[in-house]
């Protein structure tokens, strides 16, 4: 119970301390609002357009979640193929590595050229950012299944399918969640980058357009919302993990 309270109180305290320092800095050094708005200015900016900001948050959230979901739907089967077939692994792995090495910011404008200004290029960029951690964590999790468990399944004369779905995939789940948590924090960044390049909605768009009109407080409000979104997505996954895999924490 005490640790649970501490788990909530400590991060809140940390956040409050940073906010206080920030506020203090803007007052003590008399920083101009368009350079660094105080927390109060940011809150005021949010209070001015709450409906608009929440709408833009929804747009970005949708892009993020769709791209993230797509990376799971595509990434896990590909990881399965990689683990099943060493030939396929050697064929696909270098390509995946190369794909991952390409800076996503460089792809973003091309995606806009290909797919237009709608949500499609954002979803795709989020997908590209998330895909790699999902595949790697799933594949390495399935490969790390202990030999004794594999031998047990084989001694039961299991099919290949059973070996994968009753054993390897389940064993990999905690590691898959590590990959998912990495991916989801990258996903928000991916969505914002795509919106920077060409968009008419979303928090990334808000940041770019408020920057050009020197409305820094609004940009900060948008960034704050992005932060909240990241935290909610991350802890949502962590919660899901604890609910779905009660065995994992004790076992590892």
């Amino acid at each position: 119970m005490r640790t649970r309270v501490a788990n909530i109180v400590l991060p809140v305290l940390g956040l409050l301390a940073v906010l206080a320092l920030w506020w203090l800095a803007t007052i003590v050094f008399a920083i101009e609002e368009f350079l660094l708005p105080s927390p109060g200015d940011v809150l005021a900016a949010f209070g001015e357009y709450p409906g608009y900001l929440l709408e833009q948050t929804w747009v970005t959230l949708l892009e993020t979640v769709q791209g993230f979901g797509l990376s799971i739907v595509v990434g896990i089967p590909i990881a399965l193929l990689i683990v099943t077939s060493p030939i396929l692994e050697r064929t696909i792995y270098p390509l995946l590595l190369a794909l991952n090495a390409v800076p996503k910011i460089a792809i973003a404008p091309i995606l806009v050229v290909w797919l237009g200004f709608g949500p499609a290029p954002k979803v795709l960029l989020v997908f590209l950012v998330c895909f790699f951690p999902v595949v790697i964590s799933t594949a390495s999790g399935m490969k790390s299944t202990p030999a004794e468990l594999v031998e047990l399944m084989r001694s039961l004369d299991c099919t290949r399918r059973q070996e994968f779905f009753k054993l390897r995939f389940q064993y990999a789940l905690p590691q898959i969640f590590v990959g998912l948590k990495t991916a989801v924090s990258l996903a928000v960044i991916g969505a914002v980058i795509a919106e920077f390049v060409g968009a008419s909605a979303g928090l990334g768009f808000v940041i770019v357009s408020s920057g050009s009109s020197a409305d820094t407080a609004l940009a900060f409000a948008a960034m704050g919302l992005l932060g909240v979104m990241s935290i909610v997505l991350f802890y949502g996954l962590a919660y899901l993990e604890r609910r779905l895999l009660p065995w994992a924490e004790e076992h590892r």
Partner: protein
Amino acid sequence: MIVVERVSRVFDGKAEPIVALDGIDLEVGEHEFVAVIGRSGCGKSTLLRIVAGLLAPTAGRVLVAGEPVTRPRRDVAVMFQRPALLPWRSVLGNVLLPVEVHGLDRQKHIARAHELLELVGLAGFAARLPHELSGGMQQRVSLCRSLIQNPAVMLMDEPFSALDALTRTELSAELQRIWWEHPRTVVFVTHSVEEAVVLADRVAVLTPRPGRLHELVEVDIPRPRTAHTARVAAVSGALHELLTGE
């Protein structure tokens, strides 16, 4: 029930091939309990894995119930040194794993699973997860899992060697009782001479490099047997000599 015919197994070594088993001949009758002992590296686990159909012999063949073994059989259960429980499955779920893998009706076996758990003193633990159990309890679950389908043959690869001495004696006594009440064909690999003498009808002594069948010793002691009795000690002593006096 089990016939091992001139079985050899060679592994690729770094410098030269390693002969793990060299021309093993062994017959195990129906409902007979045979223990296989030997120093580590004598190939006793290799032999068991070949009988289980988990490993192919380089030469020779194994028959179970008159049929050559080419892959794991459903009427043969294997029990390993470690419990090998799936950590996300409850105790009951682990015991029922073979039933599911073999595509049988899970519901019909639940009562039997509870019976088995009771038999090994784990009634009331069915819903627990493996990590909540001690090592000895986990190995008991593993024993239930190998008994769930009433296998004709049980292959046990040093099943108690990872346990502390007390738990080990306890489990060995339980196995003796279970086997006595429901006899079945058992091949039991161990490096403990006393364990072999307490449990087995016959003891096969393997010698290492290359793994050969050195001697087959009949254990003619009435059951139930316990360690630390004069007769068990006498046979154990003789076996010790066989193992060390090469």
